[in-house]
């Protein structure tokens, strides 16, 4: 007997179903795309919102956490754009090419599209879906196959996003910064989908920033498909600085080819409930990847990092390192799975999750997993959770450093260990300043 009993739909599930039937005809994309949306939505309907008995969502019970489905965000008006312009983006001072999305819609007037290097093309996903696009046709939904429900919802509702191609051998000098701003004045949801294809031997740095005001009640479900071809070098940094009431789900699906370099970093300080999903698949040999992240949480924030790194071929090296600093009643979740397929010999993978608990009421959950089908690999994982070391604190205080400053020094060192993996020095500095500011605000 494995007949699944579907419980009564929650308000949020009903809201999503109503929204889909109402808007599906107006979402961008012709027949093939519409069929893709229908298929994705029926996958969602069959399973509903994931809950704690769904292993992959064990610690983030979306059915309980998502009380309702906010209406789809309206296209931004002039006021929303003004607010978006004023939004405080962490890497504001770094010389980037900014591509701005306001409430999920591409805002060309706020974006920096002049003087694109030859070989770099940037296009709106909404436009690509409705007018047809070779890149989208070739790659959408195909970078890494997943049956994840949040990704299915994204596919069903995807509105806009960026479609970026970096042609063979092109080195993009400045980071490309995708800025997703929630700027509406009503509760709203937005679903962005981006596709970035980095062709053979090309090099680029991609930054995603998510920001929104503290009082704004909104939901974000964003997905990025990243195709990293052979010999390419890609740095991808995601900064989740959403407003305090936001529900943020974002998914990375990265397909990494041979002889490539891939450095990924997620930095989460914002949002009420955050689910950061990374699905990384190694499909070419001799690639080196660093997948790092840091969460700084306080109050009642909840952030879940769920990573699946699949070594489909051998001779690749991956290093996964995630740090959580948890204050107040916050909860930090790390679920990491490394899969080594049968023929992926000589895989070298190490995964480590460390949580630092700054209060008695914070909670860290770690679930590292290795699934190894090959017999000649070097793989390992570890997870720790604990408070600041009293002996370290005493040593610092005995040198005259007051408690709070001593704690800050140790916390910065703890987070810095993961931040060091970022190649861009300016960005490393910005992140460490942000850590210092977070610590100062902690009081």
């Amino acid at each position, binding site marked *: 007997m494995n007949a699944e009993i579907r419980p009564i739909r929650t308000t949020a599930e009903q809201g999503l179903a109503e929204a889909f039937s109402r808007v599906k005809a107006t979402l961008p994309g012709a027949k093939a795309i519409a069929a893709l949306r229908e298929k994705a939505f029926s996958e969602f309907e069959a399973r509903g919102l994931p809950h704690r008995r769904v292993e992959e969502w064990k610690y983030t019970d979306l059915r309980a956490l998502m009380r309702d489905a906010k209406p789809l965000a309206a296209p931004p008006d002039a006021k929303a754009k003004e607010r978006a312009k004023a939004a405080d983006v962490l890497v504001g001072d770094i010389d980037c090419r900014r591509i701005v999305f306001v409430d999920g819609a591409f805002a060309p007037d706020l974006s920096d599209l002049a003087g694109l290097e030859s070989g770099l093309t940037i296009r709106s996903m909404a436009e690509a879906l409705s007018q047809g696009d070779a890149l989208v046709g070739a790659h959408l939904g195909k970078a890494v196959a997943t049956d994840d429900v949040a990704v299915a919802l994204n596919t069903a509702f995807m509105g806009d996003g960026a479609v970026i191609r970096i042609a063979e051998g092109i080195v993009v000098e400045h980071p490309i910064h995708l800025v997703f701003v929630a700027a509406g004045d009503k509760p709203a949801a937005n679903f962005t989908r981006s596709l970035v294809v980095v062709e053979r031997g090309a090099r680029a740095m991609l930054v995603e920033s998510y920001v929104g005001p503290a009082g704004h009640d909104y939901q974000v479900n964003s997905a990025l498909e990243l195709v990293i071809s052979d010999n390419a070098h890609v740095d991808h940094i995601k900064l989740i600085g959403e407003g305090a009431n936001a529900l943020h789900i974002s998914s990375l699906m990265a397909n990494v080819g041979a002889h490539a370099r891939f450095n990924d970093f997620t930095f989460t300080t914002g949002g009420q409930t955050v689910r950061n999903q990374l699905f990384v698949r190694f499909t070419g040999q001799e690639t080196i990847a660093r997948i790092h992240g840091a969460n700084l949480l306080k109050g009642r924030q909840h952030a879940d990092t769920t990573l699946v790194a699949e070594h489909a071929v051998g001779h690749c090296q991956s290093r996964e390192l995630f740090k959580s600093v948890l204050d107040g009643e916050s909860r930090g979740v790390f679920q990491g799975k490394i899969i080594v397929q049968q023929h992926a010999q000589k895989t070298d993978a190490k995964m480590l999750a460390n949580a630092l608990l700054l209060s008695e009421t914070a909670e860290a959950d770690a679930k590292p997993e290795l699934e190894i089908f090959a017999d000649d690999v070097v793989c390992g994982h570890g997870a720790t959770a604990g408070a600041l070391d009293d002996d370290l604190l*005493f040593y610092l205080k*005995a040198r005259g450093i007051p408690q709070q400053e001593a704690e800050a020094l140790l916390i910065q*060192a703890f987070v810095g260990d993961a931040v060091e993996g970022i190649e861009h020095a300016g960005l490393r500095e910005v992140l460490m300043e942000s850590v210092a500011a977070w610590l100062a605000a902690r009081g």
Partner: protein
Amino acid sequence: MSLLEVKNLHVEIDGKKILNGLDLTIEKGKVHAIMGPNGSGKSTLAYVLAGKEDYEVTEGDILFEGESVLEMEPDERAAKGIFLAFQYPIEIPGVATMTFLRTALNAQRKARGEGELSTPELLKRVKDAAARLEIGADMLKRAVNVGFSGGEKKRNEILQMAMLQPKLAVLDETDSGLDIDALKIVADGVNRLRSPERGFVVITHYQRLLDYIVPDVVHVLSKGRIVKTGGKELALELEASGYAQYQQNEAA
């Protein structure tokens, strides 16, 4: 006024009595050696002076320049001028030695109402002190004590002392784990800091260190109390006769 006055100090850890009415007075400009067998309470005394939390003072007082420090946090004591050179210096991954020195020095200056030291001035002071202790630039670039040998860690303690210029330096078995060359470097570092304004408490199990850091006063600590006080010749007597007589006397 004495630099340090320890009066009838009783200390417990986890309900176990370690110090039992210890009296000790240190004057400025003097080097006091405290010798004693294992378990006599030497390290406890060092930690209690620095303000480590786990130690409970049940009776007595510690006066530093006439002021009780019992209610002070370790950082407040440090800013007043008390320095502890640890027997086992702690490794602090991720905190660069230079950052650590700058943070400590500026925190103490701030607590005393002095301005921050400029970076060039700080660098100059660190470099000068480091050179005398044969501490290379590569060591300064590394995280505090991480990957340092035992001798390097001890030299790093003396470097910190030289930078922080305390009024009272407590050296807890600084000689342990040092070969004779490292011992000389460390002792030279300490001797350079001897001044009429500064007092030292040199805690050691062996007389050897006192050949290089010649004390003005030697105390014997046994079962949590000072049981004998004398001049530097007392250390030599102890070397010859051992601690057994003091332990027996206590037991009797």
